[in-house]
C-alpha cells in the first residue's frame, strides 16, 4: 500500500513537473522569479540539495562495501541506487538554471580549470560514472571484493570533495560576506552525510526486508546517527550565525537578519528549525519509536525537507542583500529585484524532479534484480 501511495505521489509530482519542463525548454526563462540580483534561485538550491543527497548516499553505501560494518550488510545497494537517482535530479536542476543550456558541452571541451563551477561539472560527471560503475560491480555476483573496495575508496573521497566543492562554489565569492567563510565547504560534506543517513533511514523504514532481523537495529543506529548529525548541523548553524552577528559586518548581518526575520523567516524557523530539526530529534529519541517504521520513515523525510530549506537559506538571503546601497531602486525592470520567491514554473520543475527521482527509485526496487526485491516486503503489511 505504501509503495502504491509513493508511486502515486511520484507520478502526480512528475505530471505537475511537466508544465515547468515544457515552459523552461520551449518558452524560456521569462517565467522564473530569480533574476539579475537574486541570480540563483530554487533550482540552484535544489542542485545543492540533490547533489548533497547523492554524495551522502554514497557515503552511507561505504558502510557496507568499504567499511564492511556487519550491521549494514546488504543495505549498500539501496544507498548506491539512491545516489544514482538523485544525482540526475541535481544535474537537471542546475541545467534548467542555465541561460544557454545547449552550450553545456563547452564546460567539457572548453573549460576554465580555475572555475569552481567547471570543476563541479567535471567532478559530478566523474562521480556519476563512479556511482554507475559501483552499481555495476555490486550487481555482479563474482566481482572480487578488493575491486569493489578500491572503487568505493575513490567514490568516498570524491563524495567528500564534490559535496565540499559545492560549498566552495559559494564560498569563493568574496562579494557575499555571508558565504565567504572557510566553514562553508567544511560543513557541506557533513550536511550531505546527514541527508544520506536520513534518506537511508526512510528507505530502510519503508522498504527494509522484514525477514532481516537486523532491520530494527539498523533503524535504531541510523536514528541515533541522524540525531547526532542534526546536532552537529545545529552547532554549525550556531557557530555561523553567532560569529556573523557578533562581528557585525553589515552585509553579513543583513543577510543573517534576512534569513531570521526577513522574507525567509518561515523557511528558517518553520521548515529548517521546527520541522526539519527539532521535531525529528524529538521523534527519533523517543523510546521505542524506532519500532514504528512509518513514523521513522516520515521523520526521515522531514529531515530531508529541513535540509532542502537549509540549502535554500544559504543561497537566497545572501543574494537578497544589495551589493551597493541604492542599487535596488536605481533602475527598474523585470528580474531586477532583491525580493525572491520561486515562481510556479520553478516549483513545478522542482516537484517534477522529486517525482522523477521517487519513481526512478521505486522502479529500481521493483525491476532491478540485484536490489533483491524478491525478499523485500513492505513494512506496513
Amino acid at each position, binding site marked *: 500500500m505504501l509503495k502504491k501511495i509513493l508511486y502515486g505521489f511520484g507520478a502526480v509530482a512528475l505530471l505537475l513537473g511537466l508544465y515547468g519542463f515544457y515552459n523552461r525548454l520551449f518558452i*524560456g*526563462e*521569462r517565467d*522564473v522569479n530569480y*533574476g*539579475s*540580483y537574486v*541570480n*540563483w534561485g530554487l533550482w540552484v538550491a535544489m542542485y545543492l540539495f540533490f547533489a548533497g543527497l547523492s554524495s551522502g548516499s554514497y557515503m552511507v553505501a561505504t558502510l557496507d562495501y568499504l567499511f564492511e560494518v556487519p550491521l549494514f550488510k546488504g543495505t549498500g545497494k539501496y544507498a548506491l541506487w539512491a545516489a544514482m537517482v538523485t544525482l540526475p535530479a541535481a544535474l537537471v536542476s542546475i541545467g534548467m*538554471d*542555465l*541561460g*544557454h*543550456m545547449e*552550450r*553545456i558541452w*563547452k*564546460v567539457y571541451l*572548453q*573549460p*576554465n580549470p*580555475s*572555475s*569552481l*563551477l*567547471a570543476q563541479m*561539472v567535471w567532478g559530478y560527471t566523474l562521480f556519476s560514472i563512479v556511482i554507475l560503475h559501483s552499481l555495476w560491480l555490486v550487481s555482479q555476483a563474482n566481482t572480487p571484493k578488493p575491486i569493489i573496495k578500491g572503487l568505493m575508496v575513490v567514490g568516498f573521497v570524491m563524495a567528500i570533495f564534490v559535496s565540499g566543492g559545492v560549498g566552495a562554489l*559559494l564560498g*569563493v*565569492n*568574496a*562579494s*557575499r560576506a555571508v558565504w565567504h567563510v572557510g566553514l562553508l565547504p567544511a560543513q557541506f560534506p557533513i550536511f550531505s552525510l546527514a541527508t544520506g543517513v536520513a534518506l537511508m533511514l526512510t528507505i530502510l523504514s519503508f522498504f527494509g526486508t522484514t525477514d532481516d532481523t537486523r532491520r530494527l537495529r539498523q533503524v535504531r543506529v541510523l536514528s541515533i546517527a541522524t540525531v547526532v548529525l542534526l546536532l552537529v548541523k545545529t552547532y554549525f548553524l550556531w557557530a555561523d550565525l553567532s560569529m556573523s552577528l557578533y562581528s557585525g559586518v553589515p552585509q553579513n548581518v543583513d543577510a543573517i537578519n534576512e534569513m531570521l526575520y526577513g522574507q525567509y523567516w518561515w523557511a528558517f524557523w518553520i521548515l529548517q528549525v521546527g520541522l526539519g530539526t527539532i521535531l525529528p530529534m524529538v521523534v527519533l529519541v523517543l523510546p521505542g519509536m524506532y519500532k514504528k517504521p512509518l513514523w521513522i520513515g516520515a521523520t526521515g523525510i522531514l529531515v530531508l525537507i529541513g535540509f532542502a530549506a537549509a540549502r535554500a537559506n544559504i543561497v537566497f538571503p545572501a*543574494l537578497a542583500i*544589495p*551589493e*551597493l*546601497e*541604492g*542599487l535596488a*531602486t*536605481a*533602475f527598474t*525592470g*523585470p*528580474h*531586477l529585484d532583491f525580493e525572491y520567491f520561486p515562481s510556479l514554473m520553478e516549483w513545478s520543475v522542482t516537484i517534477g524532479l522529486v517525482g522523477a527521482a521517487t519513481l526512478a527509485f521505486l522502479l529500481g526496487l521493483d525491476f532491478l534484480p540485484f536490489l533483491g526485491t524478491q525478499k523485500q516486503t513492505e513494512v506496513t503489511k
Partner: protein
Amino acid sequence: MTDSGEVRDVTRRNFLRGLAGAAGATIAIAALEDLAANPDKALASYEAQIALAAKQAGLSTTTGQLDILERMHQELARAIVKPASDRRWVMVIDLRKCVGCHACTIACVAENKLPPGVVYRPVLEEETGDFPNVKRQFIPRPCMQCDNPPCVPVCPVEATYKNEDGVVVVDYEQCIGCRACLAACPYGARTSDFGYTYIEDTIPKSEGLIVGREAADDYERAANYEYGKAWSREDEDKSPRGNARKCHFCLHRVKVGELPACVTTCIGRATMFGDAKDSDSLVSEMIAQPNVMRLKEEMGTEPRVYYLV
C-alpha cells in the same frame, strides 16, 4: 488709511515690476536683433559678459577654454593609435558634478539597445543626514573594469575575461548563462538578459494604442554593435539573450575614436574617460587628485573607475 496705503504700495510695486519687465523685454528683443544681424559678434559679446559675470561672482566657466569633451576626444585620438598594452582606459566620475539626471543610463540603454531588465550604468541615489543637514548624492555605477576582477576566474568556460585593453568583456557566444559572474561581482555590475523586449513585454498589448509600434518593434530587434559585432534580437534563442551582460566602456565606439555614450551625454561633464598612461590626459590629472576614491577598494579588485568626491 491702511487700505489705501496698501493699494498705493501695490500699485507702485506693480508699476516697477512692469517697468523692469518692459526693460528686460526690450533688451531681449535687442539681443535677438543683434544675434540675427551679426551672430558671431553677438555670441562673443554675450560669452564675454557671462565670463565677466561669472568672474565677479567667483564662479568658474569653460568659456575661453577647451571643453573637456573636446579635450577627451583629442586625447582619445592619441590613445587609440598606441598599442593596446601602452594604454590604460579609466573612467573618472566627479560626484560633485553629477546632478542625478540619469542621462548616462539612458544613453547607455540607447547605445547598446539594452532590453528591459538589463542595465549597465544605473545611477544610485543615496540620501544621508537628518533635517536640516541632509545630503543627496548620486553615484553612477558602470562596470568597474577591475584589474583583479572576481567575475573572471569563476566563469566555467572563460567567456568573460580582460581583453588586451584591460576591459572586462563577455564573449556572448561562449557564455552558458550560469550567472556565476553575477554572484561574484561585488558591485552588482552585471545583469542577465532574460529575452524581453520593450514593445512586447512592457507596454499594453492592445492594437492601435501606440503610434509607430511596429517600427519601434523592428528597431528594437535590429542589431546593436557591442564588441564591434552585430547582435540582432530577431531570434528568441540567440545571444545576447540568455547571457550575462555588462558595461564594456563602449569599446565599439572607443575603437573608432568616439567617447563612451555615457561620457558624451553627461550634461554636467561629470564623467570623464581616457588613457591613464597618458600623463597629459584629463583622467591622469583627475586620478592624481587627493579627493579620489574607488568603490570597495578594500576588496582588492583594483577598479578602473574612480570617483571624485
